[in-house]
């Protein structure tokens, strides 16, 4: 079995009295697309900075591609491609100048450099606009260019910190498709942080959920959804009053209740409470025609896991 591309043990980082990263144990298998899913302030960006050796850990250890972040951060960064939440492009330079700068930083031979840049830019539909200044580009194009820049030196590990942040839905989906295709084509291990469960479920083979600087759950997206014991039930019928919906939503074993197109959708924290909800609906005088219960997706499971882990800890960006 190959060694994990990323391995952390009890990794901790404090800023004064605040604990940004709290005893994180993470093992990212080589070749996997691994997602770190968490809300804003969960500590995802701090974790990325720790893994890249930009910030030293307070305690614990982290090894990337076999190198210790405390002693060999330069070796790690030399083998890693990074896209941070801000694309980090030089606005006054053209797209090609931005890429050539980084190719020079990575010391790529000139012939290989130009071919590689053309290949990647064509792949993401940017080649025709290579001589334009980046300042004139849309956020999506800037994000795509940042991805090209991260891949130009054929890194063994790709770290993407919220790569679709700030983009609209359609652009997010387009970028996700490109990312997924590229990550698999390049054969690199990819670590992606996101606050969007749909993105994590779409892109990642494995997902770890992070909250208050701690990893509160990890596994394959489908497995995480099953593990959480959450479920979604859809009740078809008539006479669902606002009071009834409010009453259901206020229950501790319900994470969400909403009505749309004559269907009452209830997200349950625990599957076993479904019968009690149906009884409540019937007792309220509503007509129940059909009840459908399905296992929760990652989005529902994520909400429940976060609620369960709420309480202790502090939020740091």
């Amino acid at each position, binding site marked *: 079995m190959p060694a994990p591309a990323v391995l952390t043990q009890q990794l901790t980082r404090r800023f004064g009295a605040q604990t940004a990263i709290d005893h994180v144990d993470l093992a990212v298998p080589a070749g996997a697309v691994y997602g770190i899913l968490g809300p804003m302030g969960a500590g995802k960006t701090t974790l990325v*900075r720790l893994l890249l050796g930009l910030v030293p850990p307070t305690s614990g250890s982290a090894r990337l591609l076999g190198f210790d972040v405390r002693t060999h951060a330069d070796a790690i960064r030399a083998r890693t491609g990074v896209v941070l939440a*801000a694309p980090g492009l030089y606005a006054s330079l053209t797209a090609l100048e931005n890429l050539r700068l980084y190719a020079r*930083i990575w010391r790529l031979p000139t012939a290989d450099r130009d071919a590689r840049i053309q290949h990647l830019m064509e792949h993401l539909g940017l080649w025709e606009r290579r001589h334009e200044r980046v300042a004139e580009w849309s956020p999506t194009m800037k994000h795509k260019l940042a991805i090209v820049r991260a891949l130009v030196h054929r890194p063994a590990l790709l770290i993407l910190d919220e790569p679709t942040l700030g983009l609209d839905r359609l652009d997010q989906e387009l970028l996700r498709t490109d990312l997924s295709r590229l990550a698999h084509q390049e054969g690199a291990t990819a670590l992606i942080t996101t606050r969007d469960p749909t993105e994590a479920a779409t892109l990642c083979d494995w997902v770890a959920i992070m909250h208050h600087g701690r990893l509160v759950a990890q596994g394959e997206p489908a497995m995480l959804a099953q593990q959480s014991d959450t479920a979604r039930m859809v009740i078809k019928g008539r006479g669902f009053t606002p009071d009834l919906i409010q009453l259901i939503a206020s229950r501790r074993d319900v994470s969400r209740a909403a009505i749309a197109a004559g269907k009452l959708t209830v997200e349950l924290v625990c599957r076993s409470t479904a019968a009690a909800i149906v009884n409540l609906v019937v007792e309220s005088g509503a007509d129940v025609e059909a009840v459908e219960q399905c296992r929760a997706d990652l989005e529902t499971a994520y909400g429940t896991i976060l609620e369960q882990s709420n309480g202790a800890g502090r939020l740091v960006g």
Partner: protein
Amino acid sequence: MAPGVLLDSWTIVLKEWREWRCIRARLGWSALLLLIVAWSFAAPILLRGFSIGALLAPMAWAALPITLAGVMITDAIAGERERQTLETLLASRLPARAILLGKVVAVTLLGWLLLALGALPGILQQVLAAGDAGVSPWIMARMVLGVTTPAVLLIVLAGALISLYTPSMRFALLLTIAFAGFLMLGATVWVLGWVNQSGGAMPAETTIFGLGAASVTVIDGVLFGWLLVATKTDRLLAIG
């Protein structure tokens, strides 16, 4: 220093120059250069009334390049941090020291270029006027080379350190300009005070040159050592 670090620093030097070159402000650049050259001719004439005016002329020529170098280094470090491009650069294979060294070299060389533009026309004018300011143009040239040239490096190093220890670009800029003003006014007041204490007698040019060059070079050495020790990625990113 390892050759690899120097090569990496050179990459940053080229990047910094390219960024300045690509700023679309051709009119702005022209106006700035015109101002520096005009000041080069005007300073000795305006200072002619002072007994030590000719010795102050090299300082006057350096005023604009020193201030501009302070602004440029602050923009290159604190400004790049605020434009969120510095973190990506630090996440590449370049060591933090190579990045900072490259920025210091790029801005210092630009500052020296501006100083040459500010001083050479004035010195040439003095050569043609056969030193009508009362001091040999060659002594003026020596003052420029020995005192104001390392003073440009001094302000660049000070600006880099200020940017490292100040999280906000705006405040780093204020502090750096304040430091540049303190440096230039301080040097002028020091020379004037010295002349006053010696009953208006003109001190030997070589004494002023020797003291000025020695003190600026020593401060350069101290600041450079401090910068090498203080350069850390988390400090560059103003984290923690």
